[in-house]
């Protein structure tokens, strides 16, 4: 079957399998920031935004995003032109192996879209469903708080 959806602002008309996961489709389309971790919705590595809301792409059927806007980290920034959230992760040392980082950035993006002055507790709550086995989370919380500060100062897009 064929569906229409928007990926990082670009219209897409892919052929999909009826039972295919959004994770599988996005990786087929070259979005390698979307990681395949647990594939049961538990680890958060496959998180993407659908119409601005963070969802687990491994337990979302590709067919469910028909007509919707999907955003991956590739849609936020690039190596040459990183998004402030990506810069904040680099500046605070919040990236180690990097496997969880795209998911962390996208749940942080959703949090900051609703609340640009979160408490550390609110940040911890927002990332509580995203597992990181390297950093111990402290630097990730620091990064999101720094990005929030930058957003309040107008350094955002």
């Amino acid at each position, binding site marked *: 079957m064929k569906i229409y959806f928007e990926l990082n602002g670009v219209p897409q008309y892919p052929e999909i399998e009826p039972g295919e996961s959004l994770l599988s489709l996005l990786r087929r389309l070259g979005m390698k920031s979307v990681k395949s971790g647990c594939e049961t*919705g538990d680890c958060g590595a496959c998180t993407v935004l659908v119409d601005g809301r963070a969802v687990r792409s491994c337990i979302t059927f590709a*067919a469910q995003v028909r007509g919707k806007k999907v955003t991956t980290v590739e849609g936020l920034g690039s190596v040459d032109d990183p998004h402030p959230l990506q810069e904040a992760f680099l500046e605070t040392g919040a990236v180690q192996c990097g496997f969880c980082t795209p998911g962390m950035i996208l749940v942080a993006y959703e949090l900051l879209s609703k609340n640009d002055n979160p408490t550390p507790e609110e940040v911890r709550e927002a990332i509580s469903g995203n597992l990181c086995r390297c950093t111990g989370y402290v630097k990730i919380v620091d990064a999101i708080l720094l990005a929030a500060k930058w957003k309040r100062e107008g350094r955002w897009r």
Partner: protein
Amino acid sequence: MRLKGIKRFHYARDVEEALSLLSAYQGRGALLAGGVDLARSARGDLEGLIDITGIGLSYVREDGGALRIGATTTLTELLESKGARDYLAGFLREVLRQVAVTPLRNQATIGGAVVSAHPWADIPTALVALGAEVRWVGEREERAPVEELYHQRFRAIFRDAVLTEIRLPAWEGAFAFEKLVRSAYDIALLNCACGLGIEDGKIAWARVAVGATPHRGRRLTWLEEGLVGEAPREELWSWVRGEVEAKVEVGTDRRASADWRRKVAGALIARTLARAAERQS
């Protein structure tokens, strides 16, 4: 994605079309809203999925002090709704904030929570305490208190029917919710929803439901009856702790032993009741 073998995906336009498609599959089709549980199920018997998110069942409507929630409303939509803010001074928000995490709440629906009704789930416990009513359309329109539904083979009902709405009644009183977990993201070792109505310093009505025992949330009617007519004070909560420890039906699973559950259930229920009482003082 554990679910395999899907050959067709449909987007239903209304309840009738969803029912017609479901019927055509003769048990090999399933309705899909959030899909959180369906995608994770290892069912190998399904061939068709029927997306019902476009059939007009995503809404939260206030009706006096009562609340009507469309079955495909996501937990986030419900959490952020005015209805959830106003209903029982935000009791629903207190429950929903403790259910899973934001990305899963963005996907999961209230209807899915009612139909899946995992024994450890928090929402069934809260709905049982609230006396929620569930409405569905199969061969005809039907309704039942959620508590009654859970005493039947309810999953079989929803293989041939569309759950349409959950209605929460108005209450003159206050509710509170508590759960015991190892971490904020973990599922409950025990959960508890309690409501109290207080008139002239005495308890006029009480609702107590406890879940993850490890069974699905159910009411402790013997405790509710024992509370009516009593003054909400520390002596009463001590009595609650003792009564629950002596009488509550709990079991052992891989998460906790029956002994542990029995010992902490009394404290959990007493604490939840005390919080419900405080909300009215």
